[in-house]
């Protein structure tokens, strides 16, 4: 493939927007906000990816899926680069991604609520037991309660709706 025939980076972004997240297949890698850059370095396509959680077992599958998808579109010279900084945050999940999560039964993250480890405020909140208001993705009720800070994958927490009584996942904010 010579330079003139390179697919444009817009085209590559479009292809990547069709690659599903392996753990939550309703959203794509671009919805998740983990593709940081797409660029050509001479005749090699360089895709820069940032991990979600350090220990997420899906990370290696994601790289494999990116490679498989792009090779399927005829890209034969491809390099994946890992970029740690700035660290991924759930704030980067796109609006479209959030709607897809909700429709799938996962309450999307609420921006600006990530744990900061500063406990003074938290201890006061614990005493008053005021939790964040997370709306149930099934019935929309805000009468929900946290079952566990962690859930079925590294990126989710477990909640329950006290109106429709369904348990649901909430996307952990980091």
């Amino acid at each position: 493939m010579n330079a003139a025939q390179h697919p444009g980076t817009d085209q590559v972004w479009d292809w990547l927007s069709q690659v599903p997240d392996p753990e939550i297949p309703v959203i794509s890698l671009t919805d998740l906000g983990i593709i940081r850059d797409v660029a050509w370095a001479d005749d090699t396509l360089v895709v820069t990816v940032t991990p979600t959680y350090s220990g997420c077992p899906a990370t290696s599958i994601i790289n494999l899926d990116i490679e498989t998808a792009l090779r399927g579109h005829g890209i034969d010279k491809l390099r994946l680069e890992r970029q740690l900084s700035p660290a991924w945050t759930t704030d980067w999940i796109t609006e479209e991604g959030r709607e897809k999560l909700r429709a799938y039964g996962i309450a999307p993250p609420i921006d600006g609520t990530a744990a900061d480890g500063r406990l003074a405020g938290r201890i006061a909140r614990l005493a008053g037991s005021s939790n964040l208001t997370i709306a149930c993705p099934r019935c929309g009720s805000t009468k929900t309660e946290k079952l566990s800070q962690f859930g079925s994958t590294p990126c989710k927490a477990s909640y329950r709706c006290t109106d429709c009584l369904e348990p649901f996942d909430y996307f952990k904010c980091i």
Partner: protein
Amino acid sequence: MADVASIDRTAFAEWLLRVGDNALILGHRVSEWCGHAPALEEDIALANTALDLIGQCQLWLGLAAEVEDKGRTADQLAFLRDAGGFRNLLLVERPNGDFGVTLMRQFLFDAFHIELLRALAKSTDSRVAEIAAKAEKEVAYHLERSADLVIRLGDGSAESHERMAKALKSLWVYTGEMFLDDATDQAVAEAGIAPLPSSLKAAWEATVNAVLAEATLENPGQAWQHKGGKQGIHSEHLGFLLAEMQFLQRAYPGASW
């Protein structure tokens, strides 16, 4: 990227093993609960915490391997060193005990870990700063959970209170090691790579005192403290842990999948 040549490479690699081994050994310990926790939600929470720590350990040991430059990988560092080669704190190799001991150990370590990572996010070595900034977010989450549970169980039933008080007393004598400075710490601190461990103590104490007060648990105060893990002098417990963790690579050298 910081000029690695300006600092003693051996000290830098040694220090990286300390940070990476804390994450690896605590991650492994916590993973031992998988399938055994008192409730399904807790089982999942513990497994997720373990996963975060093991993910962080891969980053730290990967950098340790790069800095020591002896052709070893993160996996080889994890699976092919014997107990004397490990540089983790004695606290993280303590056996799981009951659920209270596991949570108290997690809280005492998380409260230290967050301060360490916060300081490391400003490291002069950009690789260290990047890993720390990433890990800090995960550890903030761990700390919220472990602090919540220490409070709920400490200020819970008579039985849970008693168990948490016992756990605190048994682990307290392993907390002093977190804040001891040695020549390796001095070398990385002088290069601006990491803070002196002693500089983290005041913030750790503030967190611990606030949470213990809320949990109606008494701070054990001054006590004789164990040390040695950072220099490779471990308790007998680490050997048994490694026997399990390293079994596959020892029995089937080079096995991969």
